[in-house]
């Protein structure tokens, strides 16, 4: 009964979404306040309906109602509660419902906060959101109904894919979708602005917090996925340039460009049509990602069950949404008035450079991801594009990004003083030089890129600190005064410092991977192997029986300089039902380095293949991502986002500029 309620909510939701798509749009064109008002109510109603649908599917999962096909295929009574709930988005139908639920959440949030928007703009934004929701609800109802029943329910469910039964992965999709779908708001704002024919500072001020919130969620989502891959796949890697990873990374790159170019629109009234394009492209890349995962056109570890009807439907949605918005862009964007002029060396100039590099990086990732498809479709060879391609294209693009990252914030608007900015960065120079020396000492002629990476990390990190210190006049005035300045600094400034510092931390973590020590060996019981300064003795391997798998659990005594420092238990699990072997790695995490052991196959002599890694600074990669997301969130608390009224906002903006921002 509750399940049917959910299904019914979806159908009603589709009708509501249709109303939300057209009534406010018409109202905005006619200036009819009543019709404009429909948008808000419809968006709130849609949110309520999607919440009902989600709640009823969660109810079916929690109560293990196997008469629902989706539950029977993806759940099991023995599963812990967390995985019963997360099983909902571990499959195609459920994850689509989550997708639409988050979309409705965003729509509801816009409806709640849109009182301060000009009514016509708010109405158009909501109607674009309504169109997206209508499209995806039609998709769910036509091809992927999560509420489908079976006449004869099975006694128990089929369970979840074993590698997905993991806390990291339970939270990875919701964050990722929050990011993907969150960018639909800036997309809707862009479309509304194109219809309106007006982009101004106030517009940017409304768009930026939404883009920033989506960006934070996406950052966390990607970091969670990468961390999960690191500890579960058993070869110590944390990024594989897999098509689906790339599908999440491309909107991140475009979104990063977007949150930066929107600053220029807000402060300087320039880069308008470019920012609009970025907003469209960012969400389009999210949609393309959805298509790639669910249509099965690319080989990927993430692929959902494939159904050509679904692929065609999403492709049609894609063509309408992306094609339509880009046509609108081609027609309307040339008419957007250009804004303030600026010299190449200026804060705008630095942000433009950041944008160009980010967009190029996203383009190169797109090319690398789709190249096998391009070639395969025209009847060429089956090839795969792997890490070497991305290392050769993506990494060189990031070097100038990091170089300018420290300088940009120190340049003035309109016309900057490069020399002055560089002089103020002397501390960053020193830090970069010291990092070089330390890295050189550690490796004595080791990998050049890693040393460059450390230098860049130190440069960016120190650059972020120097910029912050400049603002609060650290060590130049009394500490008390510095503290007061720090308190009165806009939150967005603190946010930027944190996020940029986070990048530095991540870059250091990535650079350090060049110094990984890796050892793969056959170890007999009682035998030992060394990695780095650690000696690991294989004490024994026990056979354990899990609820739905067989496990070989090894016991390693880890010694450093003869002293026992840890006992680690990597496992190797075989799931007969799914015919999959998974690796339960044992990791000893530290700020300085991780020690990582994965158990492989035994050989005929009863020796075990063991992979052990010593990975310096590896946890910094995710720590940095966490800092970035934190920086974004701190930025979001900036009070100028909460001052919605355009006139007031302009006044505060002017005051902020006057205050030397």
């Amino acid at each position, binding site marked *: 009964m509750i399940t049917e309620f959910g299904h019914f909510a979806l159908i009603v939701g589709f009708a509501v979404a249709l109303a939300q798509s057209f009534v406010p749009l018409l109202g905005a064109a006619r200036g009819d306040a009543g019709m404009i008002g429909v948008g808000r109510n419809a968006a709130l109603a849609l949110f309520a309906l999607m919440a009902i649908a989600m709640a009823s599917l969660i109810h079916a999962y929690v109560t293990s109602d196997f008469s629902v096909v989706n539950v029977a295929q993806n759940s099991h009574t023995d599963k812990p509660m967390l995985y019963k709930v997360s099983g909902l988005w571990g499959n195609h139908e459920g994850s689509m419902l989550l997708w639409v639920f988050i979309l409705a959440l965003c729509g509801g949030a816009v409806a709640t906060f849109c009182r301060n928007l000009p009514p016509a703009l708010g109405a158009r934004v909501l109607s674009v959101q309504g169109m997206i929701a209508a499209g995806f609800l039609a998709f769910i109802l036509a091809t992927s109904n999560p509420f489908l029943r079976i006449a004869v329910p099975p006694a128990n469910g089929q369970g979840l894919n074993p590698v997905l039964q993991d806390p990291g992965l339970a939270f990875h999709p919701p964050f990722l979708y929050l990011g993907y779908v969150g960018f639909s708001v800036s997309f809707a704002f862009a479309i509304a602005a194109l219809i309106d024919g007006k982009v101004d500072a106030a517009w940017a001020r409304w768009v930026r917090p939404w883009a920033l919130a989506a960006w934070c969620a996406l950052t966390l989502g990607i970091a969670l996925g990468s961390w999960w891959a690191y500890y579960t796949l058993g070869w110590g890697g944390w990024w594989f340039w897999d098509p689906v990873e790339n599908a999440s990374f491309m909107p991140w790159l475009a979104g990063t460009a977007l949150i930066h170019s929107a600053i220029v629109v807000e402060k300087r009234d320039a880069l308008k049509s470019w920012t609009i394009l970025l907003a469209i492209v960012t969400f389009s890349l999210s949609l393309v990602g959805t298509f790639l995962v669910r249509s099965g056109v690319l080989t990927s570890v993430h692929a959902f069950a494939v159904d050509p009807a679904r692929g065609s439907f999403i492709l049609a949605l894609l063509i309408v949404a*992306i094609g339509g918005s*880009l046509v609108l862009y*081609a027609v309307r964007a040339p008419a957007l008035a250009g804004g303030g002029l600026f010299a190449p060396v200026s804060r705008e100039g630095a942000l433009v450079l950041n944008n160009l590099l980010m967009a190029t990086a996203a383009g190169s990732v797109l090319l690398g991801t789709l190249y096998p498809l391009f070639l395969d479709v025209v009847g060429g060879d089956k090839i795969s594009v792997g890490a070497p391609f991305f290392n050769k294209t993506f990494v060189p693009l990031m070097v100038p990004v990091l170089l300018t990252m420290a300088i940009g914030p120190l340049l003035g608007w309109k016309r900057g003083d490069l020399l002055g900015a560089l002089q103020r960065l002397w501390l960053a120079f020193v830090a970069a030089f010291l990092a070089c020396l330390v890295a050189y000492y550690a490796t004595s002629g080791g990998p050049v890129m890693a040393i460059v990476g450390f230098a860049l990390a130190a440069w960016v990190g120190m650059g972020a600190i120097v910029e912050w210190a400049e603002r609060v006049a650290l060590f130049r005035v009394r500490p008390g005064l510095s503290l007061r300045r720090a308190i009165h600094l806009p939150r967005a400034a603190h946010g930027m410092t944190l996020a940029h510092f986070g990048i530095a931390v991540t870059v250091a973590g990535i650079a350090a991977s060049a110094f990984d020590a890796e050892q793969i060996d056959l170890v007999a019981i009682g035998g030992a192997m060394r990695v780095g300064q650690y000696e690991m003795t294989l004490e024994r391997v026990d056979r354990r029986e899990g609820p739905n798998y067989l496990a070989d659990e090894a016991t390693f005594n880890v010694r450093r300089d003869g002293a026992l420092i840890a006992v680690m238990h990597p496992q190797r699990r075989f799931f007969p039902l799914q015919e999959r072997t998974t690796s339960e790695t044992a990791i000893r995490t530290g700020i300085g380095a991780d020690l990582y052991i994965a158990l492989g196959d035994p050989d*005929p002599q009863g020796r075990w293949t063991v992979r052990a890694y010593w990975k310096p600074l590896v946890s910094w990669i995710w720590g940095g991502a966490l800092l970035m997301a934190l920086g974004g969130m701190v930025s979001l608390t900036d009070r100028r986002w909460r001052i919605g009224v355009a006139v007031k906002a302009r006044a505060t903006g002017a005051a902020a500029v006057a205050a030397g921002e």
Partner: protein
Amino acid sequence: MTRKLLFALPVLLFAALGTYFTLALRPNYDPQALPSVLIDKPAPGFDLAALDDGARVATPGLSGQVTVVNFFASWCVPCRVEHPILMRLAEKEKLNLVGIAYKDRPEDARRLIVQLGDPYRRIGVDREGRTGFDFGVYGVPETYVIDKTGHIRKRFVGPLSPEVALKELIPLVRALEKS
């Protein structure tokens, strides 16, 4: 004009992308397939010592009837999972199964057969993995269906599941037997 064209560039690029996506969705396009380059080609020749020390197991002996060649090893866990299915294929379906013990010591392979039963008509010992290499074996277990004329018709990577055996392997063998 040039300016207008510049603004139309994104949509033109997307049109190209959309065309590729549309083509990729056409039926019969399967990016997941791991096709064997040997499909419909004569099976590579081999001449291996038999596990039971009998007559050598060699390619020519295979032709004339449909043969299912299964690469296995005692050190391979998925092979043990697959084993009951092979037993059924041999006992119930009477398939002509030829086993090749891949990179395995004969005594270990023999122990496996003693423990779990012997589904194979013949077992060849591929100690160095040369035959596996010639077949393009990716990892054990792998299963090849060879028709009456000695041509490889299908390759199964990984352990056979009951569904795959029932829905793909057996129908294929039956069809080949009739032809």
